[in-house]
């Protein structure tokens, strides 16, 4: 059991000494998760709003598909994105395989159903009288969308936080699409997997603690936003 305690001690040492390899993985993780979250929110929030707000034929079926995709396995997303981005794939010429944007594409696909489904759920909870009230006060279609979205902002925020948690902690996509290249595409989770395989628990525990710290920071920020 000593190796676990040693791991915590080493984690502390790595973080305090600003170990370059550790911070390279942290930076890669923050970069890739920021790209993927930005993409999934830009696409997912309007789609989630539409799915929760509009009444159209086939809505229930689409909702069922989106809900099913909530349990999308990360290795399967990694496999599909790898197939599309590899030299033999349709987008091979873009040269995105084993790059951070390549990982971000996979992670965005992973986050998208979460953002869409949870935004749709938040929008479905909008009081029917909100639409009537906004139109009565002279809102146009754009204002109707923006104000309704603002009314469910905590629900959308919860969707973003949940998706961020999934993106930050996934291994399959980062490993398959990124290739776990040191100083380049190695993220926190792929580094943990590698270091654990090598028996270097200190580095693994240090990176695990960093992940927890980032999650804590995100939740504190969200909690602050909710209070405003």
């Amino acid at each position, binding site marked *: 059991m000593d190796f676990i305690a040693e791991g915590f001690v080493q984690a502390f040492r790595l973080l305090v000494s600003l170990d370059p390899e550790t911070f390279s993985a942290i930076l890669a993780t923050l970069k890739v998760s920021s790209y993927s979250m930005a993409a999934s929110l830009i696409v997912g929030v309007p789609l989630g709003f539409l799915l929760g707000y509009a009444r159209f034929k086939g809505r229930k079926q689409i909702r069922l598909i989106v809900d099913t995709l909530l349990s999308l396995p990360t290795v399967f997303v990694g496999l599909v994105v790898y197939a599309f981005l590899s030299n033999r794939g349709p987008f091979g010429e873009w040269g995105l395989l084993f790059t951070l944007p390549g990982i971000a594409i996979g992670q965005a696909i992973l986050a998208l159903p979460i953002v869409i489904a949870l935004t749709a759920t938040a929008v479905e909870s909008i009081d029917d*009288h909100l639409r009537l*009230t906004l*139109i*009565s*006060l*002279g809102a146009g279609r754009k204002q109707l969308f923006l104000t309704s979205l603002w009314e469910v902002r905590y629900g959308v925020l919860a969707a973003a936080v949940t998706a961020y948690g999934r993106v930050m902690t996934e291994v399959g996509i980062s490993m398959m699409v990124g290739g776990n290249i040191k100083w380049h595409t190695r993220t926190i989770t792929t580094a943990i997997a590698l270091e654990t395989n090598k028996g270097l628990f200190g580095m693994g525990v240090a990176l695990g603690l960093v992940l927890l710290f980032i999650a804590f920071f995100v939740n504190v920020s969200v909690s602050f936003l909710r209070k405003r």
Partner: protein
Amino acid sequence: MTAKNFIYQIKNLKHAYNGRPILDIADFSVERAGIVGLMGPNGSGKSTLLRFLGFIEKPAEGEIRYNGKIEYPFSNAVKSHVALLPQTPYLMKRSVSKNIAYGLVINKKLSDRRIRERVHEALDMVGLDVKAFAGRQWSELSGGEAQRAALAARLALKPDVLLLDEPTASVDAASIQRIKDASIQARHEWGTTIIIASHDRQWLLDICDQAVHLFNGRIFDSAYENILFGPWYPENNGRWKKKTADLQSIIVSRPPHSSAAAVLDPRRVSLHPLSRPVRTDHHCMTGLISQLTLEKNNNNVLVSVQIGNLYLTACASDSPADSPLLFPGQNIKLSYHPDSVHWI
């Protein structure tokens, strides 16, 4: 009256939900700057009609002309000119003043100072103290205060039309009076046309220039008509009847079907002291006077008589010789000819 005097003109409006007809109005106009009351039982189509008049939704068939032109939801002619206050007020998750300012901020090109003034004016109109309420959050208001704040949000726009759906349904007496005063002030100061749907007959008749009855989606010109609901059971003499809770009978002519509804004009209902005999061809019932109402347009006195669980309205005769002395709580005879009911 020319078309220019009407702010709304409805023609051949028809609407149904899931195949069930909700509204069927062949022709109905609303005079500019008037106060119109819509009365009718639950499900009669009052709220749906208000949503169409507020251009929240479009009817399946027919046209609604607003200021002589056919208008639709989101058109510039109706945006922020027509304001609907729903039965259950909705306040956005922000402070009272921001709720009231919303319509002004998105539509009117007013300075912040002017917006603040308009918000304060609107709060004054509905009797909410500016200092106490402007900064409060939406969740810190009682039902009556929320209703008044929601009304203030509409009044801040100085709308041409104000549509009120059951504004007194769940508020206290003080709020009812404030809502009434604010509506009258809006009409007086800005020439706002006001259409109110309400079950509160006395309140409605008190405030409105014109009141109409809505039943099964159709409009009847007067709000004072009695609506008699089935089921009806045949009698041996060709008449049909229904028992009231105190086991008296309502006798009517042959209905089109056993659950049909009928209208009985209050002017066809006579009142008699208990000791006086009633014409033999009339059907007579006894009841308790529950309310006296003065009809605004012609100064007729309308007498509501409670007969078991049924309320019938009679129009007190102009002739003093025929009129008994009327006061609430008095037992009285009421009669009408069974053929005078009109099936709808």
